[in-house]
């Protein structure tokens, strides 16, 4: 029986269970919900969960396990029929069998042993599907019957259903946490592997970055080409330019929106600003590379300056525009959180609006605004696409914004594009870079959230 059909049947049984549980509860309560422990729909959900949940779990486990079991049985059969014993050869033969069975390989002139094995494989697959379908359906029916039998007014159906929901919520959050832990652990372990090739000191403080030269094995130990300082410098340079654009523009637009704009203007302008945040970064990237960078180049030529066609300036400015809505939206929120009573106090003294903003509102909102800036910085540091397209790949150690620079994220992207060997320091360096970047943005975020939190407590 195909998997999808089994799933549909389970869902139908659960729906049936819901209806039956509900009506049975009502009947048991003498037609009134008043005598029941829980509202009737909880009895329905209770029966539906008993019908659906165990059978779904069984289906999941079966499907996860049956591949390995079938594979073992087929390989045993191939080994008996062909007297091949080497594991690698057996694996290869098994792959052929699967392809034959799926029709991906032409069966004309194939090894009859393998053909027989392919038939056996198909037979096992069908058998497994049938057994699974039957077992799952029986389990679903048993669950349904068991739960229906238990439905009586005193049954605490709501508590049972809520326990299930509770567990579900917990599992969901656990999944997110476990994913993060997994990513961090893989970063750490691969970074440790990298640091067996390159000393952490050389990585963190080396002034030259040219991973390509280290491709040949005989150069690995002696090469100092994994000095990440040019990357950190490039990241810092671009993030600084971006913040120089985003902070004044974002902050001033936040002030305008929260203090000066009429309600109608605000209703139009704020969503428009937030559209900026919805533009995919790759679009910003080609805007930077095809429009902004050539513009600065021709501008520089007119002024007699030598501007590289891929410049930190272009990437930084476009990145700054990208994070403007980030800064303005967060700052707008914290400025709005400043109590009106403080503004009234200032106006009541005869202060003008700009005096009030400069001397009362902004100082009061400052911690939150700083928090917004730090979040924006971590966004800028982690941004990749714009820099890949507009800032170039050359790891120059320079603070001249008119030259091409590269960033940590760009190097990670370029090093992992295409074929890699996973034991070369070139590839492994990606993990060390990623770990560094992760630690930096983590610190920024923690500091930013601390500041924002502290600020919230002050007024609530």
């Amino acid at each position, binding site marked *: 029986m195909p998997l999808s059909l089994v799933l549909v049947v389970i869902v139908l049984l659960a729906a049936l269970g819901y209806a039956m549980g509900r009506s049975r509860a009502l009947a048991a309560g003498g037609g009134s919900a008043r005598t029941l422990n829980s509202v009737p729909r909880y009895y329905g959900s209770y029966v539906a969960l008993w019908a659906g949940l165990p059978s779904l779990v069984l289906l999941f486990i079966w499907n996860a396990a049956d591949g390995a079991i079938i594979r073992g049985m087929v390989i045993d059969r191939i080994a008996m029929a062909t007297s091949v014993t080497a594991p690698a050869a057996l694996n290869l033969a098994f792959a052929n069998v699967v392809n034959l069975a799926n029709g991906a390989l032409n069966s004309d002139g194939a090894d009859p042993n393998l053909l027989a094995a392919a038939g056996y494989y198909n037979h096992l697959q069908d058998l497994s599907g049938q057994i699974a379908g039957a077992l799952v359906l029986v389990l679903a029916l048993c669950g349904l019957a068991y739960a229906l039998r238990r439905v009586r007014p005193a049954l605490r159906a709501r508590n049972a259903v809520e326990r299930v929901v509770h567990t579900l919520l917990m599992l969901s959050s656990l999944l997110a946490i476990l994913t993060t832990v997994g990513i961090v652990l893989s970063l750490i372990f691969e970074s440790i592997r990298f640091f067996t090739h390159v000393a952490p000191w050389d990585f963190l403080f080396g002034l030259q970055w040219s991973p390509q030269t280290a491709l040949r094995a005989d150069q690995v130990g002696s090469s100092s080409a994994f000095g990440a300082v040019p990357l950190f410098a490039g990241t810092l340079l671009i993030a600084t330019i971006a913040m120089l654009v985003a902070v004044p523009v974002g902050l001033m637009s936040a002030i305008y929106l929260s203090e000066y704009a009429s*309600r109608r203007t605000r209703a139009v302008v704020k969503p428009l600003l937030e559209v900026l945040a919805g533009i995919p970064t790759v679009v910003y990237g080609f805007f930077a590379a095809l429009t902004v960078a050539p513009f600065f180049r021709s501008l520089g030529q007119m002024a007699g300056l030598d501007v590289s066609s891929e410049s930190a300036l272009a990437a930084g400015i476009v990145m700054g525009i990208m994070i403007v809505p980030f800064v303005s939206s967060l700052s707008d929120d914290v400025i709005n959180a400043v*109590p009106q*009573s*403080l*503004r*009234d*106090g*200032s*106006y*009541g*003294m*005869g*202060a*003008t609006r700009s*005096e009030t903003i400069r*001397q*009362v509102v902004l*100082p*009061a909102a400052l911690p939150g605004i700083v928090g917004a800036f730090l979040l924006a910085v971590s966004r800028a540091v982690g941004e990749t696409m714009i820099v890949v397209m507009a800032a170039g790949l050359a790891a120059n150690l320079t603070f001249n914004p008119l030259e091409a620079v590269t960033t940590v994220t760009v190097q990670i992207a370029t090093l992992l594009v295409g074929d890699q060997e996973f034991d070369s320091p070139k590839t492994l360096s990606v993990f060390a870079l990623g770990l560094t970047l992760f630690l930096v943005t983590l610190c920024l975020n923690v500091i930013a959230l601390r500041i924002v939190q502290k600020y919230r407590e*002050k007024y609530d």
Partner: protein
Amino acid sequence: MINLRIPASPAADDTVAAGQNVKFAARDVNVHYGNKHAIRGIDIDILENEVVAFIGPSGCGKSTFLRCLNRMNDTLDGCKVSGDIRLDGEDIYSPSVDVVHLRARVGMVFQKPNPFPKSIYDNVAYGPRIHGLCASQDELDATVERSLRGAGLWNEVKDRLADPGNGLSGGQQQRLCIARAIAVEPEVILMDEPCSALDPIATGLVEQLIDELRRRYTIVIVTHNMQQAARVSQKTAFFHLGDLAEFGETEAIFTNPRDERTQGYITGRYG
């Protein structure tokens, strides 16, 4: 005459006879919030160096009218004020009046103490600084000290002027706000339920202060506490559903109210 349309009590007439000037004269003041007619044709005269209490049930418009007197309602969206309000004979809603100057002359103390998130010193120095009242640091220091003394706070804070204003107790914060208001030497101080967030001891201090401030300033105070109105004010105005129901000598209002709505409110039958 205290008031042109509402006959004042004989005692009130005596006060005018003593030769006090009319500080605020309001005629036919109406306030609309959107569709809501919040204040209906109020006429009132407030005399110099007098404490006037506005009382009445919640939502009766007393705070709204108070905020008309220094045009704080300007900052609210959809609020429309009509009628004639004169400060020393000058129409404060005339286009030639700069609201910034008006508010420097008519200071305000709010319901909830709202010190700025600055030091005690900077809170008091805020007004003199923005209005450029003090030429030198010494003069500013003197103004801050005089204002804090005026608010009865100097002895409590003189050793910690650099501490944040939010660190003071509620009553101290409210007196700090009063010090902040008198630092710009206003002529009138509007107080919007200044004691509603304070405990009885702090309230007593503020009330005592109001009585002292009366010598130099005209004070209009909105209060929900009728004992407070009776204690601190010379005149009392009773507002009801946007109308000025009764206005006269405080003593007369509390002992012998003429309007039955006033009587009902004061005796606690409603409100």
